[in-house]
């Protein structure tokens, strides 16, 4: 469904609102030093004003229509975004390996992988990335439940 210019009207208003919010928030910043006659306020105020002006311009003079995907595909995007949020939130409680295995297995199935293969693939990716980052590069990744069981020596 494409309605001429509706995307740009919404986008423009959103940008303008963001600009206004930035301007408004910047007004609370009032510190001046002798060596710094500008202070922290004007820069975000000007940037916010540019944003506000551009937003209004986009909303008033919308461009050609934009073809948005069907509701089903939008649903898929929303589900994917929700899954990523879940991945983030599960990172600490489940631990890196299991959270990654879950996310990879799920998305592999979404892209047409067979269930069993996807699960194995997810576990493999989780373990491999853990070995690479946590062990080899010494970037600590959250251990989570698996870390508690296997202990600091594991994986």
């Amino acid at each position: 469904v494409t309605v001429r210019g509706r995307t740009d009207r919404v986008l423009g208003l959103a940008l303008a609102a963001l600009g206004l919010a930035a301007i408004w928030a910047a007004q609370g910043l009032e510190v001046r030093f002798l060596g710094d006659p500008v202070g922290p306020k004007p820069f975000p105020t000007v940037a916010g004003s540019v944003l506000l002006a551009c937003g209004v311009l986009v909303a008033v003079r919308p461009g050609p229509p934009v073809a948005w995907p069907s509701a089903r595909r939008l649903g898929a995007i929303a589900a994917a975004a929700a899954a990523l949020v879940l991945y983030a939130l599960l990172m600490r409680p489940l631990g890196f390996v299991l959270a990654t295995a879950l996310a990879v297995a799920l998305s592999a199935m979404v892209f047409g992988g067979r269930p069993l293969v996807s699960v194995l693939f997810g576990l493999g990716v989780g373990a491999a990335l853990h070995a690479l980052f946590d062990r080899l590069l010494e970037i600590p990744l959250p251990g989570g439940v698996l870390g508690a069981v296997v202990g600091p020596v594991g994986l």
Partner: protein
Amino acid sequence: MDAFGLLAAGFATALTPLNLGLAVAGAFVGTVVGALPGIGPVNAIALLLPLVYALKLPATSALILMAATYSGGGYGGRIAAILLNVPGDPSSVMTTLDGHPMARRGEGARALAITAIGSFVGGTSAVVLLTLAAPTIARAGLAFGPAEYVALVALALAAAAGIGGGSAAKALAAGAIGLLLATVGTDSGTGIERFTFGELEFLDGIDFTVVVIGLFAVAEVLELIERRGDAVEAVPEVGRGGLAIADIVMTLPTMLRSALAGFVVGVLPGAGATLATPLAYAIERRLAGPNAGFGKGDIRGVAAPETADNASHAGSMIPMLALGIPGSATTAVMMGALMLYDITPGPLLFRDNAPLVWGLIASMYLANVVLLVLNLPLIRLFVRMLLVPPWVLYPLVIALAFTGVWAVNNSVLDLLLATGFGVAGWAARKAGMPLVPLLLGMVLGRMLEDNLRRAMALSGGDLVILVGSPLASGLWIACVVVLLWPVLAGAVLGRRDRAEV
């Protein structure tokens, strides 16, 4: 020291085992990522960023790795364009026009070979031009004070908005959002918090890596989920036979012209490869005349855009290194990476960090040789990358993106931010809002504000200092011209259209 002495020193830097290894690795990874449908060099470099810091690579080595990956992406992008008719990024669109017809005629190998050579000619001649230009740039840089710098950054943002195509208002808005993102955190001038929402993790600002991985890698995966199930053509046979010497002789003038065109367009801030390839293609089609088979599989039609593409990559390093104005998303990411090393690209870089600049230039010569070797005999290996199933590839990108973001600060908030930027980046692309100005704003924001405040402190708050010198006012005039460019060009073209009717 003259350019040759500096270049020799650069080769000494680039030929150390670490740097040479990184150039080879970057060239390989870049070609692979360029070949994989849907994943461009920006994503590769974004995902490399956390790795680079984790390995504690020196700045020069990090830059060599990223530049080689960038060059490799230019070589790899042609593979899917020719064989699948799928341009991996906007700059390979033109390659599909003649490349895919050639592949369907069974001349895939010939098209791949001539584009490998074209990429090499384009990449190498652009680096030669870069070598010759660098000392001049270094001298010119000395004229820049805070006021000139402010005007320069304004010009960069205006150029991204004006030349980039599409809606200038949307591009400027994206730039403004980038500037606002850059203000998040503790203000360097006064020490007070701005836009931190009381969140401790925001005190140091929003990490550039998080934004880049969100806007590019995560958004890309969302886009792929949306297009999931769209029919993909089967990979055609590469075909036997290959390139005749006559092909090279015939396309050499095309390549040299396209290399020059690509380099010049690449140097223009805000333009880059997306403009260079159609320009080179149009020039060659016009010169070849109407009887040539352009659009039906003319070998010059594949050589021209690929040569220009790679030449513009090298060209786009100039405004990034010399002016601190990245012309493309990839160079913006590289610049952000350098700034995390406390190295500020800009007019003084060539003087203060000459070893870094010359090491990079030398490594770009080497990377092009490596890429030519990788892309002629080993081409079938990269073609096989097209067969990697989506269910392996895209989950891997997700896992790498999240691991990379986690590596920055070990923060769940960063993961959520990256997801948010991913959704925003996906929607912005749909709505025709360019992301390069946002990256520019974010990368340049702090420097812009610092220089602005320094200039104001120098003048005691008098705004006239900003246009005080001839250089500064010249830059401001250029800024206005660039912003009004679409309007001016529209008026000129409109008149011509009416005249033709």
